[in-house]
C-alpha cells in the first residue's frame, strides 16, 4: 500500500491541528493565522463561530509576539504565526531580545514553549524586503531551536516535536516548498530535533543541504551520478541543535564537503558547518570545503538577476566537481 501524498503546508497544518487536539494549551496566534491551519472556513469572513484557540490579530508584530510571550508565561503553548519571516523584524525586540532570553535571564523561571511558524522566501521573485533567509541570524541567538524541514514528512514530524518542546522554536518553512507534495503516513509520528537525515547515500562527496536546497542538491546528485560521481545528500533538518556527528561520519567516509545554504554567504549556516568541520575533522578532508550560498547583495526582483545570485543545480554541480578536482 503506498502512503498518501499531501502538501508541505497541509502536513504542517495537520501537525498543529493534532497537537491542538492533544493539548488544550496549544493556541495559534498571529496575523491571518488561520492560514497556518489551512482552514479557509476559519477566515473571519466565513467563520460562523471563531475557533476558540485560533486568535487572529491586527498587523502588530511586536504586540502579538509580546502577547505570545505573556501567554506562554501563563502556561499556554502558542504557535506564533507570521505571514512571512521578514515581518518578524517589525517586532524584533520581542522576537530576539525577549523570547530566547527571558528563560535564561530569569534563571529558568520563565518557560516559553513558543513555536514561531513562518517562512524563508528566496527564489520566489519577491525582492529583498520579502526575500531573505533568516536562519543564520537566528542561529546566532542562543535560546532558539531552529527547524528547517525540506519535505512534508519532515515538516509534520518536526512541527509536532516543536510544539511539544518547552523551549522556543523557530520553525522555518520555505515559500518554494509549501505547495510541494510528499508521502506522509496517517499514523502518529514525531521527528527528534538534532537528527540529520541522509536523503541520498553516496561515497564520493558529502553535500549538506538546508531546507529548499535539499531538492536542488538531489537533482544535482542525480545528474552527477550520470557523470560517475556518487554524492551523499545530508539534510540536517534542524540547525540548532545541529547533528554534527552525522556530518562528521559522512565526511569521514567521503573526504569532501560541499554545503548548500540559501542564505547570504557571509556568516551563512554553511559558514558555520564549514568552520565546525575544519576545526574538528580537518584530517578527514581531502580538499578544501566549498560553500554554495547567496551572493552578498540584497535579493533583486528580476528573475534573471535573482537566478544569478542564488544557489542553483549548476552551481552545486560545479562546486562538487571543484572539490573533487574533476
Amino acid at each position, binding site marked *: 500500500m503506498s502512503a498518501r501524498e499531501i502538501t508541505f503546508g497541509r502536513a504542517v497544518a495537520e501537525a498543529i491541528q493534532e497537537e491542538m487536539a492533544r493539548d488544550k494549551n496549544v493556541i495559534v496566534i498571529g496575523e491571518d493565522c488561520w492560514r497556518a491551519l489551512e482552514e479557509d472556513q476559519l477566515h473571519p469572513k466565513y467563520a460562523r463561530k471563531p475557533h476558540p484557540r485560533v486568535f487572529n490579530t491586527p498587523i502588530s*508584530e511586536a504586540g502579538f509576539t*509580546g*502577547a505570545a510571550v505573556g501567554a506562554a508565561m501563563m502556561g499556554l503553548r502558542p504557535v506564533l504565526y507570521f505571514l512571512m519571516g521578514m515581518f518578524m523584524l517589525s517586532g524584533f525586540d520581542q522576537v530576539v531580545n*525577549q523570547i530566547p532570553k527571558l528563560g535564561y*535571564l*530569569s534563571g529558568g523561571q520563565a518557560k516559553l514553549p513558543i513555536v514561531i511558524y513562518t517562512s524563508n522566501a528566496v527564489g520566489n521573485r519577491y525582492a529583498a524586503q520579502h526575500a531573505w533567509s533568516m536562519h543564520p541570524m537566528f542561529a546566532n541567538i542562543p*535560546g532558539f531551536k531552529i527547524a528547517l524541514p525540506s519535505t512534508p514528512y519532515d515538516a509534520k514530524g518536526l512541527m509536532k516535536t516543536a510544539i511539544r518542546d518547552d523551549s522556543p522554536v523557530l520553525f522555518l518553512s520555505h515559500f518554494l516548498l509549501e505547495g510541494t507534495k510528499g508521502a506522509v503516513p496517517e499514523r502518529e509520528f514525531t521527528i527528534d530535533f538534532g537528527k540529520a537525515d541522509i536523503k541520498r547515500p553516496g561515497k564520493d562527496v558529502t553535500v549538506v543541504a538546508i531546507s529548499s536546497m535539499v531538492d536542488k542538491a538531489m537533482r544535482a546528485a542525480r545528474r552527477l551520478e550520470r557523470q560517475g560521481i556518487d554524492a551523499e545528500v545530508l539534510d540536517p533538518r534542524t540547525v540548532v541543535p545541529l547533528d554534527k556527528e552525522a556530518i562528521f561520519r559522512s565526511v569521514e567516509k567521503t573526504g569532501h564537503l560541499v554545503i548548500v545554504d540559501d542564505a547570504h554567504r557571509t556568516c551563512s549556516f554553511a559558514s558555520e558547518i564549514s568552520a565546525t568541520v575544519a576545526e574538528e575533522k580537518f584530517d578527514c578532508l581531502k580538499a578544501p570545503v566549498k560553500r554554495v550560498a547567496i551572493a552578498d547583495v540584497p535579493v533583486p526582483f528580476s528573475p534573471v538577476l535573482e537566478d544569478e545570485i542564488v544557489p542553483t543545480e549548476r552551481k552545486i554541480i560545479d562546486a562538487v566537481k571543484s572539490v573533487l578536482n574533476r
Partner: protein
Amino acid sequence: MPRLLQYSRSLEPSRCIRLESTSERGAYASGYEAWAKLNNPMTTTVGPWVSDTAPQSDPSSPSKLSPELLLQMYREMLTIRAFEEACYDQFRSDPSMRYAGIHAYIGQEATAVGTCSALRKGDKITSTHRGHGHLIAMGAEPKLMMAEIQGKSTGYNKGKGGSLHIASFDLGILGANGVVGAGIPIATGVAFAMKHKHLNQVCVSFFGDSAANEGVFNEGLNLASIWKLPVVFVCENNQYAVHTPVTESTSVADISVRAAGYSMPGVTVDGNDALKVYEAAYSAVERARGGAGPTLIECKTYRIMPHQGDMPDYRPPEEKEAWKAKDPIKRFEEFLTKSGLLKQETKTAIAKQVTDTIQGAVSYARESNWPDPKQAYQDVYA
C-alpha cells in the same frame, strides 16, 4: 487657581464604558471630546497638570482601608527607599557592585505601593529597568533582590539577570525588563491567558513616560482593548526619558488622554500620593477583574536620583528641590500621623524593622557565594 485632576470614585461596573453599538464606536472615532461625554466614571478633567498644590487626601478614602494595610504600605515605601539607598551606598563603596546598574526608584515609592496594594494574590505584574520598587511592593524579599543585583548564586535569578531582570514568578513578578516598553505587550499576553483560562486574575504593566512613545504602547493597548483584557497599564511619568524632558518628547500634557485612542478609560493621578494611586488602581483592577477591560493610569511623579548610578544629571536643581518637597513618604507619614495611625512608638518600630531588613539584605548578599561558573551553561533551554 490650579486645575486639579478629578475622577469619580464610583466603581459600579454598570457605569463603566461599554462599547456595544456601532454608533458608540462612531462617537469614539470623533475623538476625546466625544469619549469624555460618554459618562465614564473614570473620566479625568484633563488639562495642564499643575502640581504646586499637593492634592489633599480624601478623608473618606482611608476609612475604607484597614490600618494594617495602611501601615503595610508605609513600611513598604520605607523599605523601597532604604533598599535603594543601600544600593547606592554599596555601589559607591563596594567594588563588586560597580556593575550593578542601579536605576533607583527613590521618589516614586507611592506609585508602586499604591498600585500593588490594590492587587490580590494571583495577580501579576511586569516591571521595568527601574523596578526595585515594584518588586518590593509585590512582596519580594530584599535579601534575594540584593543578591541578584550583586550577581550572587542566591539571587532570584541565580545571578543571571541582575538588577534589570529580577523576577519571582511565585510572587506574580513576571520580570523587570531591560527594554523600554517591552513589558506592555507581555502583560497584554498574560492578561490574554488569564481571560482565556478564566482565572479571575489581573495583570498590571508598569512602564515609564518614554514607553508611551514606543510602538509597543500602541500595539499592546490596541490588542488589550479589542480583546477586552484584564490588564491595567500604569504609566509612571517621572518627567524624563534619561535626560530628555517629557515636554520635549511627548505630544500630550497628560499621557492618560491617549487612552481615548484605544477606547479605554484613562486617568491621571498624583503619583506621589499613595492613596490617590491606590484608589485609581483599585477601581481599574476591579474593573478589569469584572471583565470590563483595560485602563490606562498615568502617575505623575519624579525620580530624585540620576537616571542610573552616578550618571551626570542635567535637570534644574530648583526643579528637583520642588519635587523633593512633595516627597511621597513624608506626605503619607503626615497623613498617617494626622489620622492617629502612626504613633511615635509604631514609627520607631517600623523604622527599626526596615533598617534591620535592609542591613540583613546587604550582609546576606555580601556573604552569598558567587555562582559556579559552569552555571553559565544552564537554563539556555527549558
